[in-house]
């Protein structure tokens, strides 16, 4: 009775297209406007740029944008290395073993995600200060590593669950100890999973604002979100540069997202919900 005719399907697509465009309007507008000079933007207020210009982007070279970008990359890479390393080991333990300790660990990992991060930020600020870690990327790297740990551990664990245990058992019989079996057999097979996990870790760190804002306060130390926000406050009328900066900042996010978007499908998100 309800056969989806080609007409129906194409009308659905058309509808979805409108919805998607409408929902993404803020982003689309921002990107388009980044190609208009501020005067043009304020003047014409048109959706499509009247006069296409790269002025804003050129102008960014006069700002500390590149410094911010560098800081963002350093911090994100550092956080990724730390958190993925810890999470891969932890995820493997959760995947292969069961006991009270692991159950407790799994539950606390899930619970920690619920805590307001400011609970730890205030004391950490006071701890880091005398250590000279304020305005030091290390402070943010460590905090990001822990904030991302639950999700990254869960991702790693889900991935290891897909590797059959018989392989490690065969390795144990062939002469490996349990950790050797992990290093020689499981890890080499985990390339794709670890890559995806790392990209997620990097993405979350790169996008993050709050923690970076607390610990990185000088221009030299700031990451992109913090720096651009300062710019937004100080030069609230320089829309052009703001749009360009925001658009550029968004690019790595989009590129990385393209690589992992298939992992965000079904199981990934819903499973995270179950902890």
């Amino acid at each position: 009775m309800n056969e989806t005719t080609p007409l129906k399907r194409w009308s659905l697509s058309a509808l979805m297209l409108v919805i998607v465009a409408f929902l993404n309007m803020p982003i689309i507008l921002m990107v388009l406007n980044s190609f208009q000079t501020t005067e043009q933007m304020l003047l014409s207020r048109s959706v499509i740029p009247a006069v296409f210009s790269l002025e804003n982007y050129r102008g960014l070279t006069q700002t500390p944008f590149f410094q911010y970008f560098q800081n963002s990359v350093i911090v994100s890479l550092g956080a990724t290395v730390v958190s993925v390393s810890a999470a891969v080991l932890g995820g493997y333990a959760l995947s292969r073993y069961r006991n009270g300790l692991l159950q407790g660990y799994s539950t606390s990992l899930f619970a920690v995600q619920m805590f307001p991060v400011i609970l730890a930020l205030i004391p950490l600020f006071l701890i880091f200060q005398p250590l000279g870690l304020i305005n030091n990327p290390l402070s943010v790297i460590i905090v990001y590593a822990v904030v991302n740990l639950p999700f990254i551990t869960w991702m790693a664990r889900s991935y290891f669950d897909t590797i059959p245990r018989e392989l490690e058992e065969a390795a144990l019989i062939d002469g490996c100890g349990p950790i050797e079996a992990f290093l020689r057999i499981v890890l080499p097979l985990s390339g794709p999973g670890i890559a995806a996990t790392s990209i997620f870790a990097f993405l979350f760190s790169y996008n993050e604002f709050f923690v970076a804002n607390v610990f990185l306060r000088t221009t030299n130390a700031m990451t992109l979100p913090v720096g651009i926000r300062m710019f937004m406050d100080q030069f609230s009328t320089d829309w052009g540069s703001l749009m360009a900066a925001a658009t550029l900042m968004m690019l790595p996010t989009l590129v990385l997202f393209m690589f992992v978007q298939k992992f965000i499908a079904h199981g990934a998100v819903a499973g995270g919900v179950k902890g």
Partner: protein
Amino acid sequence: MALDQVEAGTWRTRARQMATPEFVTPAILLTPSILLLMLVIAYPMVQGFYFSFTNGSLMKAGRLVGIDNYVKLLTSPAFYHSLQFSLVFAFFNVVGCYLLGLGLALLMQKDMPGRAVFRVLLLLPWIVPSLVSIVAWRWMVADDKALFNQIVAVFGGSPIYFLSDSSWAITLVIIIKIWRSFPFMMLSLLAALQSIDRSLYEAAAIDSATKWQSFCNVTVPQIKNISIVLGLLMTVWSVNDFDTPWLLTQGGPANATENLIVLAYRYTFARNDVGMGAATSFVTLFILMVLVFFLLRLQRRN
């Protein structure tokens, strides 16, 4: 005998899971993670709890002042205002995301050309950095000629200054939060919808149920559980959100969009009162635990 009662398949799986009673290897594997958690969460939290009973600043440690901070906090109008705002924010965010997410998920269930592409594009508001979202939205509401006000003008209204009008700022920040959060809800609900056994719908169709009846009697019961869990997650994430209100108006105008986290932040970094900031954080944690407890109870009853 016990074995005969246990279905062979599950028994074997359970057996495999309990196969390695080793404690040493997992303990070694967990050490880096546990160390990180101790260093960055556990220890600071204990310290923070201590600070909440002192009157220190960011520069120097203070003296113990007992529960003064908590009393001050729980008797301040600022606290109740931010509590109210946090709850209102969370409520509308969850409801808005749910409705939008469910609607889109229902649409995305249908087969159509380009569906996979649409699904990816719909995730953009979630994946884009918070700062970029705010910059984009700001432009749309910045002044009297902004896009939103152009639309308002078409309907004959006068310009709204979103960022400087309390009620409109609250409305805007909620809308932005819904915009940033709905993709997650949509994805999760889509997964839940797709896991519903098709034959249930076919049985309903044979019983000549209308689409609406089918929805109420087949779809809704099946996604009830996951909906509650999602609601819980969204609530927690909403209460914990610093970025959206702060980046938009710094909790303004006149603290209209100040939630509990922004309040704690202001106490600490603007008023230099670490004790109050810590106290606010712990009270927020307490409120969250209460919320989670009730929502979990609701889930268990289902």
